Protein backbone atom coordinates (compact mmCIF):
# COMPACT_ATOMS: atom_id res chain seq x y z
CA UNK A 1 0.00 0.00 0.00
CA UNK A 2 1.29 3.49 -0.79
CA UNK A 3 2.01 5.56 2.25
CA UNK A 4 0.05 8.82 2.27
CA UNK A 5 0.87 10.34 5.60
CA UNK A 6 3.84 10.01 7.92
CA UNK A 7 4.09 11.59 11.36
CA UNK A 8 7.43 11.27 13.02
CA UNK A 9 7.90 12.33 16.64
CA UNK A 10 5.40 15.15 16.36
CA UNK A 11 5.52 17.64 19.23
CA UNK A 12 2.97 20.40 19.71
CA UNK A 13 3.04 22.95 22.51
CA UNK A 14 0.83 25.90 23.33
CA UNK A 15 3.17 28.15 25.25
CA UNK A 16 4.76 25.94 27.86
CA UNK A 17 1.95 23.35 27.75
CA UNK A 18 2.73 20.24 25.75
CA UNK A 19 -0.33 19.04 23.84
CA UNK A 20 1.20 16.39 21.60
CA UNK A 21 4.26 14.63 22.89
CA UNK A 22 6.05 12.64 20.21
CA UNK A 23 3.31 11.27 17.98
CA UNK A 24 4.47 8.86 15.27
CA UNK A 25 2.01 7.38 12.82
CA UNK A 26 2.00 6.14 9.24
CA UNK A 27 -1.15 6.02 7.17
CA UNK A 28 -1.48 4.15 3.87
CA UNK A 29 -3.91 4.77 1.05
CA UNK A 30 -7.35 3.35 1.77
CA UNK A 31 -6.96 3.23 5.53
CA UNK A 32 -9.68 4.50 7.80
CA UNK A 33 -8.04 5.50 11.04
CA UNK A 34 -10.36 6.32 13.92
CA UNK A 35 -8.99 8.40 16.78
CA UNK A 36 -10.60 8.00 20.17
CA UNK A 37 -9.71 9.20 23.62
CA UNK A 38 -10.73 11.47 26.48
CA UNK A 39 -11.48 15.13 25.97
CA UNK A 40 -8.46 17.42 25.79
CA UNK A 41 -5.92 14.79 24.76
CA UNK A 42 -5.03 16.56 21.54
CA UNK A 43 -7.04 14.67 18.90
CA UNK A 44 -8.31 17.85 17.23
CA UNK A 45 -4.92 19.45 17.54
CA UNK A 46 -3.34 16.47 15.79
CA UNK A 47 -5.62 16.82 12.75
CA UNK A 48 -5.01 20.58 12.71
CA UNK A 49 -1.25 20.04 12.67
CA UNK A 50 -1.55 17.71 9.70
CA UNK A 51 -2.97 20.42 7.43
CA UNK A 52 -0.91 23.20 8.94
CA UNK A 53 -3.66 24.99 10.86
CA UNK A 54 -1.31 24.69 13.81
CA UNK A 55 2.45 24.97 13.65
CA UNK A 56 4.52 22.29 15.36
CA UNK A 57 7.43 22.53 17.75
CA UNK A 58 9.12 19.25 16.97
CA UNK A 59 9.12 16.20 14.73
CA UNK A 60 8.09 15.91 11.10
CA UNK A 61 4.89 15.59 9.13
CA UNK A 62 4.97 14.55 5.54
CA UNK A 63 2.00 14.18 3.26
CA UNK A 64 2.59 12.20 0.06
CA UNK A 65 6.27 12.76 0.58
CA UNK A 66 5.95 16.52 1.02
CA UNK A 67 6.81 18.26 4.30
CA UNK A 68 3.81 20.04 5.80
CA UNK A 69 5.61 22.47 8.07
CA UNK A 70 7.70 25.37 6.89
CA UNK A 71 6.91 27.45 3.88
CA UNK A 72 3.36 28.62 3.22
CA UNK A 73 3.22 27.43 -0.38
CA UNK A 74 4.08 23.86 0.66
CA UNK A 75 1.35 24.02 3.30
CA UNK A 76 -1.15 25.24 0.72
CA UNK A 77 -0.13 22.51 -1.69
CA UNK A 78 -0.89 19.93 1.00
CA UNK A 79 -4.19 21.59 1.94
CA UNK A 80 -5.33 21.34 -1.66
CA UNK A 81 -5.15 17.56 -1.34
CA UNK A 82 -6.62 17.19 2.14
CA UNK A 83 -10.31 17.69 2.85
CA UNK A 84 -11.32 18.67 6.37
CA UNK A 85 -14.73 18.32 8.00
CA UNK A 86 -15.31 20.21 11.22
CA UNK A 87 -17.48 19.54 14.24
CA UNK A 88 -19.40 22.76 13.64
CA UNK A 89 -19.48 22.42 9.84
CA UNK A 90 -18.07 25.93 9.21
CA UNK A 91 -20.02 26.39 5.99
CA UNK A 92 -19.73 29.83 4.44
CA UNK A 93 -22.98 31.52 5.57
CA UNK A 94 -23.14 34.05 2.73
CA UNK A 95 -23.11 31.34 0.05
CA UNK A 96 -25.70 28.76 -0.98
CA UNK A 97 -24.99 25.07 -0.50
CA UNK A 98 -23.95 24.78 -4.15
CA UNK A 99 -21.74 27.88 -3.96
CA UNK A 100 -20.12 26.54 -0.80
CA UNK A 101 -19.16 23.37 -2.62
CA UNK A 102 -17.97 25.14 -5.77
CA UNK A 103 -15.89 27.91 -4.21
CA UNK A 104 -12.52 26.22 -3.64
CA UNK A 105 -12.43 24.24 -6.91
CA UNK A 106 -13.04 27.47 -8.81
CA UNK A 107 -10.86 29.94 -6.90
CA UNK A 108 -8.14 27.67 -5.53
CA UNK A 109 -7.90 24.97 -8.17
CA UNK A 110 -8.83 27.33 -11.03
CA UNK A 111 -11.18 24.81 -12.60
CA UNK A 112 -13.85 25.74 -15.14
CA UNK A 113 -17.17 26.61 -13.50
CA UNK A 114 -19.28 24.32 -15.68
CA UNK A 115 -17.12 21.31 -14.89
CA UNK A 116 -17.14 22.05 -11.18
CA UNK A 117 -20.89 22.53 -11.14
CA UNK A 118 -21.49 19.17 -12.81
CA UNK A 119 -19.26 17.49 -10.25
CA UNK A 120 -20.87 19.42 -7.37
CA UNK A 121 -24.36 18.37 -8.45
CA UNK A 122 -23.29 14.74 -8.55
CA UNK A 123 -21.91 15.14 -5.03
CA UNK A 124 -25.22 16.52 -3.79
CA UNK A 125 -26.83 13.34 -5.10
CA UNK A 126 -24.22 11.30 -3.27
CA UNK A 127 -24.88 13.04 0.05
CA UNK A 128 -28.63 12.88 -0.65
CA UNK A 129 -29.18 16.63 -0.69
CA UNK A 130 -30.01 17.35 -4.31
CA UNK A 131 -33.17 19.13 -3.16
CA UNK A 132 -31.27 21.55 -0.88
CA UNK A 133 -28.76 22.77 -3.43
CA UNK A 134 -29.89 26.42 -3.32
CA UNK A 135 -30.46 26.66 0.42
CA UNK A 136 -28.29 28.84 2.61
CA UNK A 137 -26.57 27.23 5.63
CA UNK A 138 -28.88 29.05 8.06
CA UNK A 139 -31.82 27.38 6.37
CA UNK A 140 -30.47 23.87 6.84
CA UNK A 141 -30.43 21.43 9.76
CA UNK A 142 -27.13 20.46 11.32
CA UNK A 143 -27.14 17.09 9.59
CA UNK A 144 -27.78 18.73 6.23
CA UNK A 145 -25.05 21.28 6.81
CA UNK A 146 -22.57 18.57 7.70
CA UNK A 147 -23.37 16.65 4.53
CA UNK A 148 -22.85 19.84 2.51
CA UNK A 149 -19.53 20.24 4.31
CA UNK A 150 -18.61 16.70 3.24
CA UNK A 151 -19.57 17.51 -0.35
CA UNK A 152 -17.48 20.68 -0.11
CA UNK A 153 -14.46 18.66 1.01
CA UNK A 154 -15.00 16.02 -1.70
CA UNK A 155 -15.34 18.49 -4.55
CA UNK A 156 -11.62 19.22 -4.60
CA UNK A 157 -10.86 15.50 -5.12
CA UNK A 158 -8.82 15.17 -1.93
CA UNK A 159 -6.44 12.28 -1.34
CA UNK A 160 -7.19 12.33 2.38
CA UNK A 161 -10.31 13.24 4.35
CA UNK A 162 -10.08 14.37 7.96
CA UNK A 163 -13.18 14.41 10.15
CA UNK A 164 -13.10 16.09 13.56
CA UNK A 165 -16.07 14.77 15.54
CA UNK A 166 -18.37 15.21 12.55
CA UNK A 167 -21.49 14.11 14.42
CA UNK A 168 -20.88 15.58 17.89
CA UNK A 169 -22.86 18.76 17.25
CA UNK A 170 -25.82 16.96 15.67
CA UNK A 171 -29.26 16.00 16.90
CA UNK A 172 -29.42 12.23 17.44
CA UNK A 173 -31.85 11.71 14.56
CA UNK A 174 -29.53 13.31 12.00
CA UNK A 175 -26.36 11.56 13.14
CA UNK A 176 -27.32 8.48 11.11
CA UNK A 177 -27.58 10.45 7.84
CA UNK A 178 -24.03 11.71 8.21
CA UNK A 179 -22.64 8.33 9.26
CA UNK A 180 -24.34 6.72 6.25
CA UNK A 181 -22.56 9.11 3.93
CA UNK A 182 -19.27 8.38 5.70
CA UNK A 183 -19.84 4.63 5.31
CA UNK A 184 -20.35 5.18 1.57
CA UNK A 185 -17.03 7.02 1.43
CA UNK A 186 -15.33 4.16 3.25
CA UNK A 187 -16.74 1.69 0.71
CA UNK A 188 -15.23 3.79 -2.09
CA UNK A 189 -11.84 3.13 -0.54
CA UNK A 190 -11.16 6.68 0.55
CA UNK A 191 -8.37 7.37 2.99
CA UNK A 192 -9.86 8.88 6.13
CA UNK A 193 -8.81 10.09 9.55
CA UNK A 194 -11.81 10.27 11.86
CA UNK A 195 -11.86 11.68 15.36
CA UNK A 196 -15.04 10.31 16.85
CA UNK A 197 -16.90 9.16 19.91
CA UNK A 198 -19.04 6.86 17.74
CA UNK A 199 -17.37 3.66 18.83
CA UNK A 200 -19.76 1.45 16.89
CA UNK A 201 -18.98 3.37 13.71
CA UNK A 202 -15.26 3.06 14.41
CA UNK A 203 -15.61 -0.68 14.94
CA UNK A 204 -17.73 -1.21 11.82
CA UNK A 205 -15.97 1.06 9.39
CA UNK A 206 -12.50 1.73 10.75
CA UNK A 207 -9.50 -0.24 9.58
CA UNK A 208 -7.50 0.95 12.56
CA UNK A 209 -8.25 2.47 15.94
CA UNK A 210 -5.87 4.85 17.65
CA UNK A 211 -6.44 5.49 21.33
CA UNK A 212 -4.90 8.71 22.59
CA UNK A 213 -4.54 9.88 26.15
CA UNK A 214 -2.44 12.58 27.78
CA UNK A 215 -0.70 13.82 24.66
CA UNK A 216 0.34 10.40 23.36
CA UNK A 217 -0.84 7.42 21.39
CA UNK A 218 -1.42 4.83 24.08
CA UNK A 219 -2.58 1.94 21.93
CA UNK A 220 -3.56 1.23 18.35
CA UNK A 221 -4.85 -1.76 16.50
CA UNK A 222 -7.82 -3.45 14.90
CA UNK A 223 -10.94 -1.55 15.99
CA UNK A 224 -13.09 -4.64 16.63
CA UNK A 225 -10.37 -6.30 18.64
CA UNK A 226 -9.82 -3.15 20.68
CA UNK A 227 -13.51 -2.69 21.41
CA UNK A 228 -13.76 -6.37 22.38
CA UNK A 229 -10.77 -6.06 24.68
CA UNK A 230 -7.99 -3.50 24.52
CA UNK A 231 -4.45 -4.35 25.63
CA UNK A 232 -3.94 -1.39 27.91
CA UNK A 233 -5.89 -0.67 31.05
CA UNK A 234 -6.56 2.96 30.07
CA UNK A 235 -7.96 2.11 26.64
CA UNK A 236 -10.07 -0.67 28.11
CA UNK A 237 -11.50 1.68 30.71
CA UNK A 238 -12.20 4.44 28.20
CA UNK A 239 -13.81 2.18 25.61
CA UNK A 240 -15.84 0.59 28.37
CA UNK A 241 -17.27 3.87 29.63
CA UNK A 242 -18.00 5.29 26.20
CA UNK A 243 -19.53 2.05 24.94
CA UNK A 244 -22.09 2.22 27.74
Amino acid at each position, binding site marked *: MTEILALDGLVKRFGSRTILDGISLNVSAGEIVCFVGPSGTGKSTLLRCI*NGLEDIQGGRISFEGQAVQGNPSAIR*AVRKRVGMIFQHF*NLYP*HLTALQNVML*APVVVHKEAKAEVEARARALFDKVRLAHRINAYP*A*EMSGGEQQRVAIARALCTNPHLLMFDEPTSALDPETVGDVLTVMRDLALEGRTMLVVTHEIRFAADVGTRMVFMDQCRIVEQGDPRAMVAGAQTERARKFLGTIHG
Partner: protein
Amino acid sequence: MGYSFTLRTIYPYFGDLWQSALNTLSLSLLAIVLSIALGALVALMRRSALRPVRLLGAAYVEVMRNTPLLVILYLVYFAAPEAGVRLSSFMAALVGLTLNSAGYMAEILRAGLIAVPPGQFEAAQSQGMSSAQVLRHVVFPQVFRTIYAPLGNQVIAVILASSLATAVALDEVASWMQTVGSSSFRFFETFVVAAVVYLVLCQSVNIARILIGRKLFPQGRRA
Protein backbone atom coordinates in the same frame (compact mmCIF):
# COMPACT_ATOMS: atom_id res chain seq x y z
CA MET B 1 -40.39 92.98 13.86
CA GLY B 2 -41.90 90.75 11.18
CA TYR B 3 -39.27 88.91 9.17
CA SER B 4 -40.72 87.83 5.87
CA PHE B 5 -39.23 84.58 4.63
CA THR B 6 -38.81 84.76 0.88
CA LEU B 7 -36.84 82.72 -1.57
CA ARG B 8 -37.34 85.21 -4.39
CA THR B 9 -34.08 87.07 -3.78
CA ILE B 10 -31.91 83.96 -3.82
CA TYR B 11 -33.78 82.30 -6.68
CA PRO B 12 -31.15 83.35 -9.28
CA TYR B 13 -28.53 81.41 -7.31
CA PHE B 14 -30.29 78.09 -7.56
CA GLY B 15 -28.46 77.23 -10.79
CA ASP B 16 -25.16 77.29 -8.88
CA LEU B 17 -26.72 75.28 -6.10
CA TRP B 18 -27.24 72.31 -8.41
CA GLN B 19 -23.55 72.21 -9.28
CA SER B 20 -22.60 72.64 -5.63
CA ALA B 21 -24.85 69.79 -4.59
CA LEU B 22 -23.27 67.56 -7.24
CA ASN B 23 -19.84 68.45 -5.87
CA THR B 24 -20.93 67.61 -2.32
CA LEU B 25 -22.38 64.32 -3.52
CA SER B 26 -19.44 63.20 -5.66
CA LEU B 27 -16.92 64.26 -3.00
CA SER B 28 -18.81 62.36 -0.31
CA LEU B 29 -19.42 59.18 -2.30
CA LEU B 30 -15.80 58.98 -3.43
CA ALA B 31 -14.56 59.61 0.11
CA ILE B 32 -16.87 56.88 1.44
CA VAL B 33 -15.66 54.29 -1.06
CA LEU B 34 -11.99 55.18 -0.67
CA SER B 35 -12.20 55.32 3.11
CA ILE B 36 -13.76 51.85 3.21
CA ALA B 37 -10.72 50.57 1.27
CA LEU B 38 -8.23 52.45 3.44
CA GLY B 39 -10.18 51.58 6.58
CA ALA B 40 -10.09 47.89 5.64
CA LEU B 41 -6.31 48.09 5.32
CA VAL B 42 -5.99 49.77 8.73
CA ALA B 43 -8.40 47.27 10.32
CA LEU B 44 -6.28 44.40 8.96
CA MET B 45 -3.12 46.09 10.24
CA ARG B 46 -4.65 46.09 13.69
CA ARG B 47 -4.93 42.28 13.51
CA SER B 48 -1.42 41.74 12.19
CA ALA B 49 0.84 39.20 13.87
CA LEU B 50 3.52 41.90 13.92
CA ARG B 51 3.31 44.27 16.84
CA PRO B 52 4.74 47.34 15.07
CA VAL B 53 2.13 46.95 12.33
CA ARG B 54 -0.64 46.66 14.92
CA LEU B 55 0.62 49.78 16.69
CA LEU B 56 0.78 51.70 13.44
CA GLY B 57 -2.84 50.80 12.71
CA ALA B 58 -3.96 51.81 16.19
CA ALA B 59 -2.00 55.06 15.93
CA TYR B 60 -3.65 55.90 12.64
CA VAL B 61 -7.11 55.48 14.14
CA GLU B 62 -6.32 57.58 17.19
CA VAL B 63 -4.64 60.38 15.25
CA MET B 64 -7.55 60.65 12.84
CA ARG B 65 -10.19 60.50 15.54
CA ASN B 66 -8.43 63.13 17.62
CA THR B 67 -7.65 65.66 14.92
CA PRO B 68 -10.36 68.04 13.71
CA LEU B 69 -11.18 67.47 10.05
CA LEU B 70 -10.63 71.17 9.45
CA VAL B 71 -7.02 70.83 10.58
CA ILE B 72 -6.48 67.84 8.30
CA LEU B 73 -7.97 69.75 5.37
CA TYR B 74 -5.69 72.74 6.05
CA LEU B 75 -2.68 70.44 6.28
CA VAL B 76 -3.49 68.80 2.97
CA TYR B 77 -4.40 72.00 1.14
CA PHE B 78 -2.13 74.66 2.63
CA ALA B 79 0.76 72.80 4.23
CA ALA B 80 1.35 69.99 1.75
CA PRO B 81 2.30 72.39 -1.09
CA GLU B 82 5.27 73.40 1.08
CA ALA B 83 6.40 69.82 0.68
CA GLY B 84 5.82 69.98 -3.06
CA VAL B 85 2.36 68.35 -3.12
CA ARG B 86 -0.10 70.76 -4.67
CA LEU B 87 -3.66 69.50 -4.92
CA SER B 88 -6.79 71.04 -6.40
CA SER B 89 -9.55 72.00 -3.97
CA PHE B 90 -11.49 68.89 -4.88
CA MET B 91 -8.52 66.55 -4.54
CA ALA B 92 -7.44 68.14 -1.25
CA ALA B 93 -10.97 67.83 0.13
CA LEU B 94 -11.16 64.20 -1.08
CA VAL B 95 -7.82 63.28 0.49
CA GLY B 96 -8.63 65.00 3.79
CA LEU B 97 -12.12 63.57 4.05
CA THR B 98 -10.91 60.07 3.10
CA LEU B 99 -8.08 60.11 5.65
CA ASN B 100 -10.48 61.24 8.35
CA SER B 101 -13.32 58.87 7.50
CA ALA B 102 -10.90 55.92 7.23
CA GLY B 103 -10.17 56.27 10.94
CA TYR B 104 -13.83 55.61 11.72
CA MET B 105 -14.28 53.03 8.94
CA ALA B 106 -11.34 51.09 10.37
CA GLU B 107 -13.15 50.77 13.70
CA ILE B 108 -16.41 49.73 12.06
CA LEU B 109 -14.60 47.16 9.92
CA ARG B 110 -12.63 45.90 12.89
CA ALA B 111 -15.86 45.13 14.69
CA GLY B 112 -17.05 43.34 11.55
CA LEU B 113 -13.86 41.29 11.37
CA ILE B 114 -14.15 40.28 15.01
CA ALA B 115 -17.67 39.02 14.29
CA VAL B 116 -16.39 36.49 11.73
CA PRO B 117 -15.96 33.19 13.62
CA PRO B 118 -12.43 31.69 13.63
CA GLY B 119 -13.92 28.57 12.04
CA GLN B 120 -14.56 30.55 8.87
CA PHE B 121 -10.88 31.40 8.49
CA GLU B 122 -9.95 27.80 9.26
CA ALA B 123 -12.39 26.30 6.79
CA ALA B 124 -11.14 28.60 4.05
CA GLN B 125 -7.47 28.07 4.89
CA SER B 126 -7.93 24.32 5.07
CA GLN B 127 -9.22 24.44 1.49
CA GLY B 128 -5.89 25.87 0.40
CA MET B 129 -6.95 29.48 -0.07
CA SER B 130 -4.28 32.17 0.11
CA SER B 131 -4.74 34.95 2.66
CA ALA B 132 -6.03 37.24 -0.07
CA GLN B 133 -8.52 34.60 -1.25
CA VAL B 134 -9.73 34.00 2.29
CA LEU B 135 -10.41 37.70 2.72
CA ARG B 136 -11.91 38.23 -0.70
CA HIS B 137 -14.22 35.21 -0.89
CA VAL B 138 -15.02 34.34 2.71
CA VAL B 139 -14.26 37.10 5.19
CA PHE B 140 -15.08 40.41 3.54
CA PRO B 141 -18.52 39.34 2.28
CA GLN B 142 -19.42 38.47 5.88
CA VAL B 143 -17.84 41.62 7.28
CA PHE B 144 -19.73 43.70 4.75
CA ARG B 145 -22.99 42.08 5.80
CA THR B 146 -22.31 42.81 9.47
CA ILE B 147 -21.28 46.42 9.00
CA TYR B 148 -23.88 47.33 6.42
CA ALA B 149 -26.25 48.90 8.96
CA PRO B 150 -23.61 50.71 11.09
CA LEU B 151 -22.16 51.98 7.81
CA GLY B 152 -25.27 54.15 7.46
CA ASN B 153 -24.17 56.47 10.26
CA GLN B 154 -20.73 56.95 8.82
CA VAL B 155 -22.12 57.61 5.33
CA ILE B 156 -24.23 60.47 6.70
CA ALA B 157 -21.33 61.71 8.82
CA VAL B 158 -19.15 61.96 5.71
CA ILE B 159 -21.76 63.88 3.74
CA LEU B 160 -22.18 66.37 6.57
CA ALA B 161 -18.43 66.61 7.18
CA SER B 162 -17.90 67.40 3.50
CA SER B 163 -19.32 70.86 4.30
CA LEU B 164 -15.90 71.71 5.75
CA ALA B 165 -14.48 71.48 2.23
CA THR B 166 -15.58 75.09 1.82
CA ALA B 167 -12.47 75.87 3.86
CA VAL B 168 -10.29 74.63 1.00
CA ALA B 169 -12.26 76.67 -1.54
CA LEU B 170 -14.36 73.89 -2.99
CA ASP B 171 -17.71 74.97 -4.45
CA GLU B 172 -19.99 72.71 -2.51
CA VAL B 173 -23.26 73.32 -0.68
CA ALA B 174 -21.79 75.03 2.39
CA SER B 175 -19.73 77.39 0.30
CA TRP B 176 -22.79 78.17 -1.81
CA MET B 177 -24.58 79.02 1.41
CA GLN B 178 -21.85 81.39 2.55
CA THR B 179 -21.44 83.08 -0.82
CA VAL B 180 -25.13 83.51 -1.51
CA GLY B 181 -25.90 84.56 2.04
CA SER B 182 -23.38 87.35 2.04
CA SER B 183 -24.16 88.62 -1.44
CA SER B 184 -27.96 88.51 -1.14
CA PHE B 185 -28.17 89.30 2.59
CA ARG B 186 -30.90 86.65 2.81
CA PHE B 187 -28.88 84.60 5.32
CA PHE B 188 -31.79 82.84 6.95
CA GLU B 189 -33.19 81.65 3.61
CA THR B 190 -29.86 80.38 2.33
CA PHE B 191 -29.21 78.54 5.58
CA VAL B 192 -32.60 76.87 5.39
CA VAL B 193 -32.13 75.93 1.74
CA ALA B 194 -28.68 74.49 2.47
CA ALA B 195 -30.07 72.48 5.39
CA VAL B 196 -32.80 71.08 3.15
CA VAL B 197 -30.25 70.15 0.47
CA TYR B 198 -28.13 68.27 3.04
CA LEU B 199 -31.21 66.52 4.35
CA VAL B 200 -32.25 65.47 0.87
CA LEU B 201 -28.71 64.32 -0.03
CA CYS B 202 -28.29 62.32 3.17
CA GLN B 203 -31.68 60.72 2.93
CA SER B 204 -31.28 59.88 -0.77
CA VAL B 205 -27.97 58.19 -0.15
CA ASN B 206 -29.34 56.40 2.90
CA ILE B 207 -32.42 55.15 1.08
CA ALA B 208 -30.23 54.03 -1.82
CA ARG B 209 -28.08 52.16 0.70
CA ILE B 210 -31.11 50.44 2.20
CA LEU B 211 -32.50 49.46 -1.21
CA ILE B 212 -29.14 48.09 -2.34
CA GLY B 213 -29.00 46.19 0.96
CA ARG B 214 -32.33 44.53 0.23
CA LYS B 215 -30.98 43.36 -3.12
CA LEU B 216 -27.69 42.16 -1.67
CA PHE B 217 -29.11 40.48 1.42
CA PRO B 218 -32.60 39.13 0.79
CA GLN B 219 -34.87 38.65 3.78
CA GLY B 220 -34.88 35.45 5.74
CA ARG B 221 -31.19 34.92 5.29
CA ARG B 222 -28.70 35.46 8.02
CA ALA B 223 -25.44 36.07 6.25
